[in-house]
């Protein structure tokens, strides 16, 4: 008997033919399976595609983002070496000094924290200075006018021709500034740009000791090799306290920042896809169970194990590919929404094109994930004995358990590989996979526990319809677990978003009592301190804190100078330690946001030899220092030798001044310094009045109104959470499709049951009540599991990560939970219409066809 030859003749074509023949009879069922993954694929592809487009556009528009080919910048006026380097490059084509400062509007008396940009030269060389009127961009320097951010113009009802006072100088407003290279992102929302001619900067009187200045020198050199320039000059400039930024490196950094957010969104979208795949697994499980008899018959007729397996595998693979294709197409359309959602958070105008990588990813994901998740149920066909054509037989469970383990490992490996491809970090990827497994396991556990509890404490005293619908949750071939997972995970994601947003906002909010500062005054010179404090007190407000600030740079670490460390290619000390100008304070005690981790706190010293300082944990980590290690600092020309006496953990998230380095009392009192004062004002009017008074008398003092910053942060968080919500909503949508699939799959079973009930006398109203209650229970179970899990995880986040109290938002309870329950109920009822309305015989006849 030459069996091989006989069956190989049938070959792949026959398998496809059989897959098609069998599949076309189950079109609607299979379409719903496919729909389960469409939403998830669409979500992932839309993020990936938009992210690719954004990266491409940032790269293409990098020159216009910077306005030049490269910049040399410094926090101090460039020294001789830096000037020499710039001369050797042919000299800068434009220059700028920028710093935050208060600006006053004489017409209205209002004032605002702005980013003053004093520009000279033809900047920008790429991109545009977009102004209204257009001519203002060309003539503001010549005419000595100011360009004011468009939002500020709107906010303070300003027109071209009005005045703006910056420091001691009042400028006519030449025009409204719509966009300028180098001004975007969160900081521009807090301190929007005001552009003035460079020549007036000194006159403003705002260049003082301790001012936070940025000196920028713009170079227009389209033919220069930026990589070589960067490699050659950057280390030299770093040593002189300056920095070289090319348009390519800046855009790469920007791309990375947005890329990180995109990765996070992709992971959220991936969860929607996972849900869809769980829906597939559950639906295919029931689908295959219904095919086992046919498989047995095929085996009787001579089909091999492999052939029967491949018939259904082909069906799933084609569905997966088709679902991937539809999901990809939908995702490409959906990405159009992101520019609308992100708005001015985007640094560039994004031209959307087809991203081949995203398309390929969508198709492959559809194929692989469908096959992977359907594999275990499909393996059931391998274990079917042809004897099942004669009688029902028990499946060999030991073989199928092995298969379950193998398939589970394959799925986990795929999850890990996909997240690693996204995150490029094996630790994060493992954490993500572990997080998913734990979340799904807990959700499944909650569902199983609920079922157990219901079974154990079954309410026998309830009426028939309520009891019957409850027991339907654990009927044979129920899909309760799948549905609770699908609904629960979506609810969990959205609830967690709301709770986390609340945590972040609570974290950054100031206290409402009079002892919590809500106004911070920066850049107060020593000789101004008393007068500023008196102004605050005169207005009836307290001076809460008086923080001295001394600027200094690291000179050496462990006896090695920073220049030596820079040249040492084996050094692991972070470059920001070597290049940064630190703002340092001195005091005798810790503050609320600090906790001593190692060493001993020294409040005061008299000796200037080996000054015991306290450093923050992140400083210690990046500078590679421990308690007892020695550092020296250049304090504006004076070298101070210090030793690390203690290391503090600092809660940088708190809205107050925190410091990487703290000196004890007795050392820096005579050093050149400026002061930060804080106060508490009761309301916006009091804040405006105080600001107006301070800006009038002390124009160099910058004023941070924490309330206004919080508004900006809240706006940003709302925008971000909108986007995450949008992604998480895909999970809900997927859950709905999975629910519809589950309802359809069990439809015949329900019909038979309803028909039987009606035959023995149940009224339509009673059937309706049974069906309604069953879906109501499912909605409640799924929604509640999701919210409870979200509450627990948010509480843990609050306790361990944010170290703050947690007051949950009401939205998940009042809107999400009832909304989800209602949705599940509606979907269930809509798909069960025929069950409820039709007469028994008609229903049976219809189903028989």
């Amino acid at each position, binding site marked *: *008997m030459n*069996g091989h030859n*006989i*069956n*190989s*003749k*049938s*070959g792949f074509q*026959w398998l496809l*033919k059989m897959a098609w*023949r*069998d599949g*076309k*009879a*189950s079109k609607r069922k299979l379409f719903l399976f496919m729909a389960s993954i469409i939403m998830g694929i669409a979500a992932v592809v839309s993020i990936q595609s938009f992210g690719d487009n954004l990266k491409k556009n940032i790269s293409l528009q990098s020159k216009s983002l910077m306005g030049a080919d490269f910049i040399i910048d410094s926090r101090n006026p460039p020294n001789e070496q830096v000037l020499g380097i710039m001369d050797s490059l042919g000299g800068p084509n434009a220059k700028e000094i920028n710093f935050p400062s208060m600006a006053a509007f004489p017409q209205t008396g209002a004032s605002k924290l702005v980013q003053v940009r004093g520009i000279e030269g033809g900047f920008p060389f790429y991109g545009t200075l977009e102004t209204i009127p257009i001519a203002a961009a060309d003539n503001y320097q010549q005419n000595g006018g100011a360009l004011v951010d468009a939002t500020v113009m709107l906010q303070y009802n300003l027109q071209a021709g009005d005045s703006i006072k910056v420091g001691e100088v009042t400028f006519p407003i030449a025009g409204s500034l719509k966009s300028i290279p180098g001004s975007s992102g969160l900081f521009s929302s807090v301190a929007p740009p005001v552009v003035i001619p460079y020549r007036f900067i000194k006159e403003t009187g705002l260049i003082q000791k301790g001012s936070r200045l940025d000196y920028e020198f713009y170079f227009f050199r389209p033919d220069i090799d930026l990589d070589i320039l960067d490699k050659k000059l950057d280390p030299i400039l770093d040593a002189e306290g300056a920095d070289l930024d090319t348009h390519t490196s800046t855009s790469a950094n920007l791309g990375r920042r947005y890329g990180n957010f995109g990765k996070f969104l992709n992971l959220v979208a991936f969860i929607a896809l996972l849900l869809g795949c769980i829906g597939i697994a559950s639906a295919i499980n029931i689908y295959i169970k219904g095919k086992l*008899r*046919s498989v047995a*018959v*095929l*085996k*009787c*007729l*001579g*089909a*091999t*194990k*492999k*052939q029967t397996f491949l018939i259904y595998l082909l069906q799933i693979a084609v569905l997966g590919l088709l679902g991937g294709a539809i999901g990809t197409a939908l995702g490409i359309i959906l990405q159009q929404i992101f520019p609308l959602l992100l708005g001015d958070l985007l640094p560039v105008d994004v031209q959307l094109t087809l991203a081949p990588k995203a398309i390929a990813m969508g198709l492959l994901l559809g194929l692989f994930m469908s096959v992977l998740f359907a594999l275990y149920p499909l393996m059931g066909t391998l274990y079917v*004995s*042809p*004897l099942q*054509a*004669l*009688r029902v037989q028990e499946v060999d469970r030991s073989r199928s358990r092995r298969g379950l383990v193998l398939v589970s490992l394959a799925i986990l490996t795929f999850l890990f590989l996909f997240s690693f491809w996204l995150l490029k970090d094996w630790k994060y990827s493992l954490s993500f996979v572990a997080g998913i497994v734990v979340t799904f396991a807990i959700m499944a556990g909650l569902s199983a526990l609920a079922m157990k509890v219901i079974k154990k404490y079954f309410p026998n005293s309830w009426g028939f319809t309520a009891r019957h619908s409850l027991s339907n949750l654990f009927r044979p071939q129920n899909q309760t677990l799948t549905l609770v997972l699908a609904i629960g995970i979506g609810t969990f994601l959205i609830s967690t978003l709301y709770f986390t947003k609340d945590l972040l906002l609570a974290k950054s909010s100031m206290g409402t009592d009079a002892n919590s500062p809500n106004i911070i005054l920066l850049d107060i010179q020593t000789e101004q301190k008393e007068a500023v404090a008196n102004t605050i007190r005169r207005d009836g407000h307290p001076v809460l804190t008086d923080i001295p600030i001394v600027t200094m740079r690291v000179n050496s670490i462990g006896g090695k100078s920073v220049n030596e460390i820079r040249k040492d290619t084996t050094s692991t000390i972070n470059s920001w330690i070597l290049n940064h100008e630190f703002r340092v304070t001195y005091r005798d005690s810790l503050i609320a946001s600090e906790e001593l981790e190692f060493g001993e706190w020294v409040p005061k010293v008299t000796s200037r030899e080996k000054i015991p300082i306290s450093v923050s944990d992140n400083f210690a980590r990046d500078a590679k220092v421990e308690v007892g290690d020695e550092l020296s600092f250049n304090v504006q020309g004076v070298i101070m030798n210090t030793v690390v006496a203690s290391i503090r953990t600092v809660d940088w998230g708190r809205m107050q001044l925190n410091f990487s380095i703290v000196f004890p009392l007795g050392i820096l009192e005579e050093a050149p310094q400026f002061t930060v004062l804080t106060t508490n004002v009761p309301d916006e009017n009091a804040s405006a009045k105080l600001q107006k008074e301070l800006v009038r008398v002390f124009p160099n003092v910058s004023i941070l109104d924490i309330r206004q910053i919080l508004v900006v942060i809240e706006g940003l968080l709302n925008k971000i959470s909108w986007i995450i919500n949008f992604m998480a909503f895909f999970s809900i949508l997927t859950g709905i499709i999975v629910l519809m699939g589950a309802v359809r799959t069990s439809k015949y079973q329900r019909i038979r049951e309803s028909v039987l009930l009606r035959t023995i006398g149940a009224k339509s109203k009673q059937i309706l009540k049974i069906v309604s209650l069953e879906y109501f229970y499912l909605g409640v179970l799924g929604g509640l599991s999701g919210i409870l899990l979200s509450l627990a995880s948010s509480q843990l986040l609050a306790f361990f990560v944010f170290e703050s109290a947690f007051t949950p938002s009401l939205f998940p309870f009042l809107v999400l939970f009832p909304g989800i329950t209602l949705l599940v109920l509606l979907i269930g009822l809509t798909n069960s219409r025929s069950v409820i309305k039709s007469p028994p015989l008609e229903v049976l006849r219809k189903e*028989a*066809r």
Partner: protein
Amino acid sequence: MAKILNVNNLGKIYTSGSKKLTVLQDITFDVEEGDTFSIVGPSGSGKTTLLGICAGLDRPDSGTVTLCGTELGSLNEDERAILRNRNIGFVFQDFQLLPTLTALENVAIPLELRGDKNAIKNGMELLDKVGLQNRFHHYPSQLSGGEQQRVALARAFSNKPSILFADEPTGNLDAETGEKVIQLLFQLNADAGTTLVIVTHDLELAAKTKHILRLKGGKIIANQETTAL
């Protein structure tokens, strides 16, 4: 006449939890080529189990089965499938047509499995033979019980089997339809020269075959030619 089926000292035990149930014990018999053979007995006597083992659908716990010159115990599952496709036809009590395939497609499957390029054409001829020339493209749910069983007969004979196993072929049919189906079965059998093994509790049907094997409690209590009963 050559022996097409030889069963020697066959035994089968089913395990249910901790209990062992002896379904068949010391079964030995032969079936000659071209013969018509029935296996009768009350419910639970092991007839369907015996049929399944003889057809290579299941394995005995003891003894041997030699079918078409091949000892079935030496074959793996795929080899058995190939043997079934080449040499064996099946007729089931509940027809066992594939519900998602039309009547014609159901009949053509065994032919397609062996790579017959004229599977559809041959299928049409067979359906014609059983009087279903107008039902090629109907699905099983659109056919009556008798029509379904006729499709099943056509399918069973499609690969010109050496032996055909029928498990209660008229069990789900009314008497009149059942009679027609049996006539068709024997006619096709005579035309094709196939050996016929029927499991039935219908003694009238059994009487139409040449040999009857009678089972009770998993053991043979009689193995005779029909004229002797």
